[in-house]
């Protein structure tokens, strides 16, 4: 009996292991789609004083290297690790937090869960929409296997004199979408150079860190505006206009409008589009 058990144990368990000898990386996939494509929004919940958060930003770079423009990213500074030092301090005095970022943090409890983390189209994976950055690529790959359910076109006109951006969002529904839907139109600014803590570096505190695609604010409130009433069907089209005046400290050439359509009950994002305000 003892012998039999030992043999069974050894056989069962050695069979239960895969040894990867290399290569360790998959081959990058080419992107040659034409027409409407499904795009994915990665919301990276982060903080300037979160020393592990640059790893999440790097994960986005790696995903973008595979999927290119199909990936729209947004860096959202929230919670304790985004709380700036008092003005006059030598470091970390800039406040990246926004009311709209805090609104979604309150909804999904990202900062309470622990940073970094994020959401990929707010898709629920293992019971929760909030995921570790190391799972983002897997979720992106799953989402991108499906055909797009909607197409979003964003058109911006920007006046340098008034610093006002006017945005038109056109939505074409391509598939049956049960439930109710909202459109969020947010503004992001890319390549903001400011302090960031990074535990991979010595010293940790980096004054020249490049903060990518940082959420700056909303053109249509925290939760967005309704799209249609009730379920949406193929052939439905919607056109909505918005505007926003840029803060004088923001670099207009680095700003983009991110528009996404989401189900109000599940909060899952159906489609997203990003367009720079100055082409």
């Amino acid at each position, binding site marked *: 009996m003892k012998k039999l058990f030992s043999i069974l144990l050894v056989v069962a*368990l050695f069979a239960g292991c895969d*040894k990867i000898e290399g290569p360790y990386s998959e081959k990058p996939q080419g992107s040659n789609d034409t027409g409407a494509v499904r795009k994915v929004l990665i919301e990276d919940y982060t903080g300037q004083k979160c020393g592990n958060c640059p790893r999440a930003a790097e994960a986005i770079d790696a995903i973008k290297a595979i999927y290119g423009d199909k990936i729209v990213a947004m860096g959202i500074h929230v919670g304790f690790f985004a709380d700036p030092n008092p003005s006059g301090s030598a470091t970390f005095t800039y406040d990246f937090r926004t009311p709209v970022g805090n609104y979604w943090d309150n909804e999904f409890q990202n900062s309470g869960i*622990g940073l970094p983390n994020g959401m990929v189209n707010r898709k629920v994976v293992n019971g929760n929409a909030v995921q570790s950055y190391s799972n983002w690529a897997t979720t992106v790959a799953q989402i991108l296997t499906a055909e797009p359910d909607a197409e979003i076109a964003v058109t911006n006109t920007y006046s340098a004199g008034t610093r006002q951006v006017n945005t038109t969002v056109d939505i074409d529904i391509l598939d049956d979408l049960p439930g109710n839907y909202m459109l969020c139109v947010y503004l992001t600014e890319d390549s903001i150079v400011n302090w960031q803590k990074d535990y991979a570096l010595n010293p940790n505190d980096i004054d020249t860190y490049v903060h990518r695609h940082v959420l700056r604010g909303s053109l249509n409130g925290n939760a967005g505006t309704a799209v249609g009433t009730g379920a949406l069907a193929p052939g439905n089209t919607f056109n909505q206009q918005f505007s926003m005046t840029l803060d004088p400290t923001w670099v207009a050439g680095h700003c983009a409008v991110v528009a996404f359509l989401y189900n109000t009950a599940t909060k899952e994002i159906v489609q997203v589009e990003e367009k720079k305000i100055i082409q």
Partner: protein
Amino acid sequence: MRESLKRRVKNTANHQPPTANYSPYLQKSFALKKTLLSLLLLGATTMLFAQQDTAKKSIDLGQIHGNFQFDFQYYNPDSLIGAPVVPEKIRSNGFLNLFYTRGNFTAGVRLESYMPVLQGFDPRYKGIGIANRFASYEYQGLEITAGNFYEQFGTGTVLRSYWEPNLGVDNSFDGIRVKFTPRAGIYTKVLIARQRTFFDRSPGIVRAADGEVNFNELISKWDGKKFKLTAGVSGVSIYQKDEDPIYILPENMAAFAGRINIGYGKFNLYSEYSYKLNDPSAVNGYIYRPGQALLIQASYSQKGFGILMGVKRLDNMDYRSDRTATLTNLTTNFLPALTKQHTYNLAATIYPYGTQPNGEMAAQGEISYKIKKGSKLGGKYGTDLSLNFSAVNDIERTAADNDTFGYRSDFLAVSKTRLFRDINLEINHKWNKNLKTNLMYMYFEYNKDIVQFQNYNAVVYGIVKGHIVVLDINYKISKKTALHAELQNLYTKQDFGSWAMALVELSVAPNWFFSVIDQYNYGNYDKNQRIHYVTGTVTYIRGPHRIMATYGRQRAGIFCVGGVCRNVPASNGLTVSVSTSF
């Protein structure tokens, strides 16, 4: 270990075969299931009987046991300590465990409620629901369990699940487990399960087996011998699909362990070695290097004297049923710290050491000695002395040929990077029948950058060094009343500076306990942060029921595991806890 020992006794000695008329009763009990369930939910707590019409005698329908805990907190914002505004003002955690046993059959269910979860807990504990349910049956050496269960192989270096509601940890297995004892002295377990994660299950499936032989039970000649030998082997394999478009990940991650316990009279030697094959994960930074753990513990004890020594090496041994999980979520194994688990407030809460699963080498020694009663130092009742020492350093790492392999590390090489040091002496003396004191001195070194933040690359806080002195006094005022006081001081010039703590607790048996604690950060370099964290507690106990109300301030804290950091905000308010068991 203790649980499995109990189980063995049950298997071998206390096992009663079912009586001939068992089945009809069982059927009847199933027919009564609905009624029972209603009663369960109403909180019926005692043995249930029903009358059998024909025989006119009472029939045992089984027993219901359980326990209940409900904690709620009312939050006040407090800008001085950084306690935030809590929009709900009141938050609560609660659970009810119910167990039904009848003969060899056991079933249980746990309801958990988070409305919303208390601050500091993972907010993914959300809402109310059945978090645990199981049924198990045991007969003639075979025990089967379906549903949620807790299991541990050896010390847990390859597999251990546990529930700690006050820490928000529950990684129970949800699946099937079979335990089989073919004959006395041979114990086998096989399980296949997913693990609990909040109100969901892990993406990975855990397949595991364990075999243990107790030679003193197996070989009849060895029964009662001074020499005792137990040996066990375990193996675990976790399956998680690889859909990652960037890495080629192993889908089956295996780990094996072997353990041996040798006893000879008052000596005991325990050793466990485990090996984990490539398991790239969020916690180890997606390296393909295998993991290893070795634990050796030796002890000798006789009346009035005991000595314990242990050494441990851990290298890349974090093991989870989701390679992307962090913090305390979905851990499949458990790596205990080889350091003293302090209970005195300042020693336990300001700089507590936590095992570093990615790598550490540790040694611990403890000597306890009782100075005889009647001697000059021992006095009328004797004096207990306990000296404990522990040291933990990082493992040495050198660059690997391939980044993805992680690093190379000589098994016996100790890195110069200190993670933790602790040397402490306790002197426990009973002065007379009413007065007892315990005096503790402790020196510690704590690598805050690595232990708290896993920040291996820069020295921000450095190694915090300090001294702690504790005087603990227990004085029996009368037959019913007793006074317990503690005075503690943590002295350090680093980090937040020195702390003092005072506790006074009055117990009026058998129902009432009153206590006040003041934790005072008198040495903070920022004079505005020299704050008193005062809490007052009133506890009422009647039989198994306990109602506790605490009002005061709690400090903020940060903890990081596996590349994720969570801030536990400070709080100020009233906490009420109600618990009971039946």
